[in-house]
């Protein structure tokens, strides 16, 4: 029988959670309420006696100092409206899982099938609300109806003996799993209907290729032998769709492209990936020769580079955009714990040492009407932030770097970039750790969580725009603790040499993980009925595809399986043998003794026809503003500092643990009050060594409106600049490219596809040119190509966006520096030249303009400057260094001063520039490759010698007090403000 246990705070105790909800109801929904009180509800559905449930309610569920409980009847009755929110059947309920373990321990028995604990939260609201307002609070704030259920009761209609009543959200299904056949010998229209009805996201050409395979006489003969009919099974079709998805195969990046440039010249590009990204890395590695520090690039789940003689660094960045659009919390949480498994599943597995996160949202004060299925940007912001907080903090991985970019066009799909770095010994038990191979005869073992219907079609769903029928099953919730237990266990198994190979279960679930590993040995045989399920009633294809989280797939030597399973059991991790790797050449899947899939490995991985696409570039011309240079730029500086893209992100940063593991030595917040914006973060992954890694990123989608070539160049330059500002090392710096694009395939849905593809080509060309020129090879990357929203007539496409992440290795973190001004009397320098690069700037955006002169990067000049700056920092000549990016020199100067809590005097007449005759341009132009540096007077001469041959100038000094003064070109004061006023302008916008 089921019991309902309510746990609430004693009336004398402050309900911080209730207060937070109250604030959000008022701030976000504009509904006035007097108070909100929260009650935790546990619905325990298990065979238990009344004394036993009493023991549970007063034991593990209760904090007796501050809480009280009731069983079977409501704990409180003083409210006007009650809203209860719980999960829908089958959705991961982490608290319910922990509660269940606690009850099992108390009863000293495991739950039987069908028994469970379910949690929900009861919000008791006082205030005069209409029914409609109560519903708005429920759906607009408390519950995400995709994954959660809610119930509303008004006080008068409330029965005090029953309260909200007992609801058991159990998955009720007893159906037997079945394998279905799918007839592909049908019309083209019918083929496409199958593709879209099953969310296969396959094109007609691809569907036909699959049909041709099934029609092949040789294939038919073999299938007959194994007991299969002429049609493919649903398992086969679904496995092919996952393996062939844009998400997994990067069809656009690997396609054949005919690119027509501005002058009408036509280029044929045979794979953007090979031509630009991979080629650059290969050429850089070749040039490095013996000194090549890249270890494993582009082939594994993450890139691997050398850290020192004994250790390698592993790094990967992913996106989790589509799920985050529908369920920001679950989507982002899954994003972070999902990308954790990439370095963890690289080589033989890495220990995870840092997370990075960059988000792109529509502004939080977005006031346009929201199209159907879209959540308000502020809700997405809060949900994503919280998801990453829980995913990162609970996993014990410091979140060290990131940014938030705002643009209205992210309303249709937010971008959620999540990255994770790891470290692994170069050799484990005498073998290189970055190498792995499943061998024929190895057992297929799945560890971690169980399989449910969650996340089905994630890979194909994210290979489409967000539309009316986007499946809600793709949304899921991660469980960091189950994953932490698993990673604790697997690192131990790794060091004991208990397995050959490891990979993660992400997009495509087992079909992808096993399918990928089986490439090593050329075949596999897997028995789906052995897979542990969260609940009964899954069809075999669902078991094969489910993206249920927290699972790794391993190849375990048969002779090691005993100790492997024993260690798993001891460490409370579920591990199951699902089959074995073979050399049969077949992807062979069985279910209850019958073959459910029997595909040629070669067809599965290489049968995909290539895409042939057209791209046409044209230069867009935007209106130029015509206003005059304002004589006093104080107000403009404050406005630019208050821009969402410029302002402080402290409220978000503080809610992430950036110091766990003890190695964070340049933190994301620096300066006199620990609140200045660090350019990069420096970590010391080995506590006994001074060696470190510097982590930074660059992202500037506004420039895409003018030319994606320069957008890409600027993103690379920004990531490198940020890295160097903290003392990073250009000689051993690796990059990661993460492309997020809007659909670039010409079609009825996308009439400007050829232009968007040309934008992609140009970004890739820049990536090749600039990574080469700087000698910063990409070691890993990812693309997400369908970031559009299309329902009815409303189409919202993101601006083409690339996050470029940089990681460099430094030999001594004690040489690293921060961006805050240090002492009064220090001299202020600008490094680099300023041009009229106002196109795409924050200053122009402030006035609603884009403009045309986009910043361009002069790589050879920049590189010479970077090397000189690096030498100066290494010699200890630089007191502070801050890069000029969004908001230009004005913002960089202000941030340097306010972070150091010191005044500053600067003269714009001394700023090296070319073609600039306005103060606002000098202050707000976003010309690249520039830094604001402060230098102690005693180092001035040596510093200048060090920089000789580069463009730089002393432009002012750090002063005592708190006055920030900038003298303009005509010798008059252009900006005069107190740094604390500037700081307030910079901190206010996102200080929630």
């Amino acid at each position, binding site marked *: 029988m089921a019991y309902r246990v309510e746990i609430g705070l004693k009336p004398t*105790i*402050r309900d*911080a*959670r209730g207060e937070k909800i109250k604030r959000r109801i008022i701030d976000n929904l504009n509904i006035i309420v007097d108070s909100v009180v929260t009650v935790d509800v546990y619905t325990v559905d298990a065979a238990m006696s009344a004394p036993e449930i009493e023991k549970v309610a007063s*034991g*593990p*569920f209760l*904090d*007796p*100092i*501050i809480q009280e409980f009731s069983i079977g009847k409501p704990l409180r009755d003083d409210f006007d409206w009650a809203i209860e929110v719980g999960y829908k059947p089958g959705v991961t309920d*982490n*608290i319910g*899982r*922990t*509660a269940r*373990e*606690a009850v099992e*321990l*108390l009863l*000293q028995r495991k739950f039987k099938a069908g028994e469970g604990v379910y949690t929900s939260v009861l919000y008791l609201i006082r205030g005069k609300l209409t029914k409609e307002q109560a519903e708005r609070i429920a759906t607009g704030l408390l519950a995400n109806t995709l994954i959660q259920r809610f119930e509303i009761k008004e006080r008068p209609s409330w029965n005090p003996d029953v309260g909200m009543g007992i609801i058991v959200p159990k998955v009720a299904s007893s159906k037997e799993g079945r394998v279905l056949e799918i007839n592909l010998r049908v019309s083209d229209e019918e083929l496409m209907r199958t593709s879209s009805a099953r969310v296969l996201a396959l094109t007609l050409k691809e569907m036909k290729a699959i049909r041709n395979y099934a029609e092949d006489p040789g294939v038919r003969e073999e299938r007959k032998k194994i007991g299969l009919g002429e049609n493919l099974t649903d398992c086969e079709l679904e496995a092919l769709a996952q393996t062939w998805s844009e998400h997994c195969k990067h069809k656009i990046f690997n396609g054949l492209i005919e690119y027509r440039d501005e002058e009408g010249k036509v280029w044929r590009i045979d794979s953007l990936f090979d031509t630009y990204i991979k080629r650059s890395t290969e050429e850089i590695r070749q040039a490095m020769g013996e000194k090549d520090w890249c270890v494993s690039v582009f082939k594994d789940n993450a890139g691997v580079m050398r850290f020192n003689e004994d250790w390698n660094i592993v790094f990967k960045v992913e996106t989790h955009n589509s799920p985050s659009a529908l369920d920001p919390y679950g989507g982002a949480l899954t994003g972070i714990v999902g990308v954790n498994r990439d370095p963890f599943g690289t080589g033989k597995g890495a220990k995870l040492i840092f997370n990075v996160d960059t988000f792109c949202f529509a502004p939080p004060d977005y006031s346009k009407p929201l199209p159907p299925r879209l959540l308000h940007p502020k809700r997405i912001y809060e949900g994503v932030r919280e998801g990453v*907080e829980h995913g990162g*903090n*609970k996993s*014990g991985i410091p979140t060290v770097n990131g940014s938030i970019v705002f643009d209205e066009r992210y309303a249709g799909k937010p971008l959620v970039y999540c990255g994770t770095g790891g470290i692994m010994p170069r050799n484990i038990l005498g073998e290189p750790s970055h190498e792995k191979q499943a061998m024929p005869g190895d057992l297929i073992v799945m560890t971690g969580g169980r399989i449910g219907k969650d996340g089905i079609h994630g890979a194909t769903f994210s290979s489409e725009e967000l539309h009316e029928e986007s499946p809600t099953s793709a949304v899921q919730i991660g*469980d*960091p*603790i189950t994953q*932490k*237990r698993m990673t*604790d266990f697997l690192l131990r198994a790794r060091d004991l040499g208990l397995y050959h190979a490891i990979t993660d279960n992400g997009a495509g679930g087992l079909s992808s993980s096993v399918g990928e590993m089986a490439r090593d040995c050329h075949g596999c045989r897997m028995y789906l009925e052995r897979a542990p399920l969260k609940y009964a009633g899954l069809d075999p294809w669902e078991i094969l595809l489910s993206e249920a989280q927290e699972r790794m797939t391993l190849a375990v030597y048969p002779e090691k399986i005993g100790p492997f399973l024993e260690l798993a059991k*001891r*460490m*409370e991790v579920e591990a199951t043998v699902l089959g074995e790797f073979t050399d049969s050449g077949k992807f062979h899947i069985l279910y209850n003794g019958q073959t459910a899939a029997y595909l040629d490995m070669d067809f599965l991985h290489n049968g995909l026809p290539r895409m042939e696409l057209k791209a046409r570039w044209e230069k867009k011309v935007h209106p130029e503003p015509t206003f005059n240079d304002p004589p006093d730029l104080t107000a403009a500086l404050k406005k630019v500092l208050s821009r969402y893209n410029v302002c402080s992100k402290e409220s978000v*940063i*503080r*809610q*992430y*643990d950036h*110091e*766990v*593991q*003890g190695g*964070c*030595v*340049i*933190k994301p917040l*620096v*300066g*006199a009050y*620990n609140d200045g914006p660090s350019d990069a973060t420096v970590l*010391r992954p080995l*506590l006994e060594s001074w060696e470190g890694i510097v982590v930074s990123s660059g992202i500037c989608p506004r420039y895409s409106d003018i030319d994606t070539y320069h957008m890409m160049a600027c993103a690379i330059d920004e990531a490198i600049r940020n890295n160097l500002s903290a003392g990073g090392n250009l000689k051993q710096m690796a990059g990661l490219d993460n492309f997020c694009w809007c659909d670039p395939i010409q079609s009825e849905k996308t009439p400007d596809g050829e232009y968007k593809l040309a934008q992609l080509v140009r970004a890739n060309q820049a990536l090749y040119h600039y990574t080469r020129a700087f000698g910063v090879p990409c070691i890993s990357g990812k693309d997400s190509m369908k970031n559009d929203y299309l329902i009815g007539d409303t189409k919202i496409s993101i601006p083409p966006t690339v996050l470029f992440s940089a990681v460099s290795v430094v030999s001594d*973190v*004690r040489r*690293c*520096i*921060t961006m*805050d001004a*240090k002492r009064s009397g220090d001299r202020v320098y600008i490094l680099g030249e300023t041009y009229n690069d106002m196109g795409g700037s924050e200053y122009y955006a402030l006035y609603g303009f884009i403009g045309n002169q986009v910043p361009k990067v002069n790589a050879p000049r920049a590189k010479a400057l970077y090397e000189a700056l690096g030498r100066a920092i290494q010699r200890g000549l630089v007191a502070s260094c801050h890069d000029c990016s969004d908001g230009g020199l004005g913002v960089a100067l202000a941030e340097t001063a306010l972070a150091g809590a010191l005044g500053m005097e600067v003269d714009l007449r001394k700023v090296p520039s070319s073609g600039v005759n306005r103060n606002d341009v000098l202050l707000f132009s976003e010309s690249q490759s520039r830094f604001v540096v402060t230098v102690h007077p005693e180092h001035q001469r040596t510093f200048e010698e060090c920089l000789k041959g580069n463009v730089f100038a002393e432009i002012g000094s750090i002063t005592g007090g708190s006055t920030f003064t900038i003298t303009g070109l005509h010798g008059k004061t252009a900006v005069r403000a107190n740094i604390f006023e500037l700081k307030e302008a910079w901190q206010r916008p996102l200080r929630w």
Partner: protein
Amino acid sequence: MKKVKALVLAGNGINCEMEMAHACRLAGSDVVDIVFLYDILSGEVKLDDYHFLNLPGGFLDGDDLGAAKAMAHRLKYAKIAGSGERLDEVIFRFIREGKLILGVCNGFQLMVKSGLLPGLKGIYGKQALTLTFNDSGRFEDRWVYLKVNSNSPSIFTRGLKGLYLPVRHGEGKFIPKNDEMLAELERKNLIALQYSDPDYRKPTLEYPLNPNGSASAIAGICDETGRLFGMMPHPEAYLYFVNHPRWTREKVPEEGMGLAIFRNAVEYVRKNL
């Protein structure tokens, strides 16, 4: 000379075990073992073989039932294979033998929820106070100033005046069962650490110096023997000067301030056990 043996607990959501073990090593402990809870439950590792039990920070069981709550429940009910002893019985014996326990953050929450602290009148095992959600309703990572009570019996804070350390928690607000208990903690000088002004002089209730709204600005307490100590801020996060958030602009001592806590513990073991 006496060999000092420290055990650092790991597993099930604990996540500061590496730096905690590193702190023990730097402090001079001869043996430092990171031991998974499961290895104690399986009987393979015996707590009795150690002098100094470290309960590091993390998210035990995800803090799903409230910080460290499910783990406190486990101490009460989980039995060790072979001997059949409950985990808490083993810990009580450890205490009786005069050994040391340090709980940091989630480890402090565990000590409180399982009744290891404050252990008034030598009675352990019954929860008498709590650590709950910060007044801000948020998890926060920020550095705080801590005034040390020099009259406290805590052997961990001997010779210290003040500490500057990071807090990283969402549930650090100290609430005693009642005012009498708070008065008793004060009278017996069990309040070893308080959030304070930057001069380490005045305890403060003012946010963000007091990051969570703790009663009497309490950041850490000890039991009457001074051998059991719990604190919300992280001493293991400040072992080197480069951990200090302003080492690039201020003169800070070569050794991180947090190390003193571990040095005191190791020295105590060497002299007394």
